[in-house]
């Protein structure tokens, strides 16, 4: 795209082509206003796409293999470790990292912090895609994925924690689709839909908070079914769900920081002034919130240790691993965020966010895979399982990028012919700079 932008091509950001005054068709909008040849050209020139192509070339056949020959051909068929990377990473890691949806939604719609609006849509999309792909991972992991709707429609086991997770994820996905659909309705030009969603925005957001609290907690409560199987330092009978819920908060916030940083570095041409100008301020705001949550999490983890009198475990090998996870994943980001907020250095906050994301992933993998069955033996996931997990993540990135390129998430859709309604969000940028100027400006921003 850099190449094309230097030639003065402008990606679609309104219903009407600025240069020819003709309306963009859906096909034009999908191709960002480029000709198919131009679009293909820019895709082929992007080295990241080569990496994605290799991953897909190896991974997609393996996924087909899994479906035609059973889970046994891509996993170790372990009866002691029934859950592997698909759930360990795809569900347990992706879901807390997608908590950004309800966090930013709450901040903006409930608490009225409209200063976070420039990144609100990104956070909502991050949340939607994370949950959606958690379901995709689930479809690869389930023995009979075609029976996914069974706990909803066929046979109910309401006493099971997973029942709650299934219902909540399904409902929450609908809530998130509704929240992100605002951007979609702008893009296709159906403002009636957008108005309807905006009217129920508070209701949607409150539903989102309820559902998120419960299913983020429920994912933790799932491990309450196996109290003897997880190492005591990662398992707390009364607090497991609270630990998971509280850690989901910094996870979601930091994922937004990380993704927004990657976007700034790789896709700044798609971002408008509103996004780029406010990003640093928003990042520091998110960092403040994340650091508060991390400090809380650190305290409640040690309350958990004290409650069950597990101090002696800290002196063991597993104890050292626990302290390392806390030090790198929790304490270090707290220090980095404190410095970043105090001295207003965004770069340090970004590093803190990346480390936090790593820390959350490590915590979930520790709980679900690494310290699971700690008294038995260690299980390393099958290579094919790793490849498929990476492939699904690559598809997630592709879909994420596809939507960010097109929908008005990072930029404002220009409504020349529509009258502004009172329900519209306060996000329209005052000066309508064309993306290529904004892109050039962004190159001067650190």
């Amino acid at each position: 795209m850099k190449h094309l932008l230097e030639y003065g091509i402008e990606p679609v950001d309104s219903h009407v082509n600025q240069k020819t005054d003709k309306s963009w068709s859906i096909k034009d909008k999908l191709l960002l206003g480029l000709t198919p040849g131009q679009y293909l050209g820019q895709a082929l020139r992007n080295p990241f796409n080569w990496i994605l192509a290799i991953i897909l070339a190896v991974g997609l056949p393996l996924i087909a293999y899994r479906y035609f020959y059973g889970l046994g051909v891509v996993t170790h068929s372990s009866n002691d470790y029934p859950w592997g990377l698909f759930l360990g990473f795809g569900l347990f890691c992706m879901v807390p990292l997608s908590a950004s949806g309800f966090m930013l939604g709450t901040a903006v719609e409930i608490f009225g912090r409209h200063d976070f609006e420039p990144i609100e849509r990104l956070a909502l999309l991050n949340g939607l895609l994370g949950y959606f792909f958690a379901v995709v991972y689930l479809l690869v992991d389930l023995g009979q994925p075609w029976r996914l709707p069974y706990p909803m429609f066929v046979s109910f086991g309401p006493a099971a924690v997973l029942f709650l997770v299934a219902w909540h994820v399904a409902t929450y996905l609908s809530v998130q689709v509704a929240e992100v659909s605002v951007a979609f309705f702008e893009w296709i030009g159906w403002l009636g839909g957008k108005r309807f969603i905006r009217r129920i925005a508070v209701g949607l957001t409150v539903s989102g908070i309820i559902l998120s609290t419960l299913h983020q907690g429920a994912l933790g409560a799932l491990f309450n079914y196996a109290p003897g199987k997880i190492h005591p330092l990662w398992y707390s009978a009364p607090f497991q769900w609270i630990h998971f819920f509280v850690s989901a908060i910094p996870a979601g916030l930091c994922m937004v920081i990380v993704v927004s940083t990657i976007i700034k570095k790789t896709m700044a041409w798609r971002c408008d002034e509103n996004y780029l100008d406010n990003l640093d301020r928003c990042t520091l705001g998110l960092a403040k919130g994340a650091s508060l949550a991390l400090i809380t999490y650190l305290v409640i983890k040690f309350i958990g240790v004290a409650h069950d009198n597990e101090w002696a475990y800290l002196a063991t090998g597993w104890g050292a691993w626990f302290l390392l996870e806390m030090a790198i994943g929790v304490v270090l980001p707290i220090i980095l965020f404190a410095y970043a907020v105090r001295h207003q250095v965004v770069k340090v906050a970004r590093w803190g966010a990346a480390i936090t994301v790593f820390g959350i992933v490590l915590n979930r993998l520790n709980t679900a895979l690494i310290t699971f069955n700690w008294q038995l033996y260690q299980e390393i996931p099958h290579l094919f399982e790793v490849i498929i997990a990476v492939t699904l993540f690559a598809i997630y990135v592709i879909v994420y990028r596809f939507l960010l390129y097109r929908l008005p998430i990072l930029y404002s859709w220009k409504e020349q012919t529509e009258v502004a309604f009172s329900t519209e969000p306060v996000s329209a940028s005052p000066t309508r700079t064309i993306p290529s100027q904004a892109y050039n400006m962004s190159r001067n921003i650190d």
Partner: protein
Amino acid sequence: MSGISRRRFLAASIAGCAATTLAVPKKALASGAFSGYPDSMGVLVDLSRCIGCRSCEAACNEEQNLPAPALPFNDKSVFDQTFHGGTQKRRTDENAYTVVNRYNPEGSEPVYRKFQCNHCAEPACLSSCFVNAYTKTPEGAVIYNKNVCVGCRTCMVACPFHVPAYSYSSAFDPAIKKCIFCHETRLKNGLPPACVDICPQEALTFGKRKDLIKIANQRIQTNPGRYINHIYGENELGGTSWMYLSPVPFEEVGFDPNPGNEPIISHVKDFLSTVPMVLAIWPALFVGFHLLAKKQDGHDHDAEKQHEEEGAE
């Protein structure tokens, strides 16, 4: 946001809270309070009697139409097999619903242990299944319905005995595989399971669970020094239908000596109780926050100041 929708939303949320709180209360049964149906059957496994002949494995294989094994059932070399770097003995899997393992406790002759699903009174698998695929029958068997199973394998995570296995080899019809107490073919017709029937040493005693406890206590009492004075499974994890007597301490023959007497569901009950609380409290709490955060027209200090400034110009 317009006033009308806020009012409507509040009304709807109050109605929702009322609905959850006014649900007809059912008779509450605490977890760990169910020790089984009164005439539930059970099996007493006496490890001092087992000689490791593996006839029970053969009988189960035939009764449940399992695939042919790799080695004959009278081949005792299987007792030397280990897995995962020599740390694990044989376990149940999709082709073997019960296995016998040999243990060599110090200062004792080899002890053989048959293990299979213990058919708990309040099973972890049943409690954790979100499609209600498991049923605890009045005869005592914990059976499984493969027609609703989605293959999430939470039951395998939940079972404290690591019993359920999954047919990972099947692409289109996988299922959980475990001992079903020969429910379909024998138990519901009043017959003992195949393994009990074939055992030459009567290491397996079939009967009503409550009678088995009496028998086990009498056995311990009339054979002083022969058994550890404990019936494993009488109270463990809420009580199991298959109970064990051992001549050596239980941890030396592959048992977890302290799984606790609470059924697994006790560990999730507190979280499950929180759910309706959150559903009921969160709406009012966050709508309340929203109302507090939203600036009221005419009372906004900044807006007033702005009006003053504009008026002065």
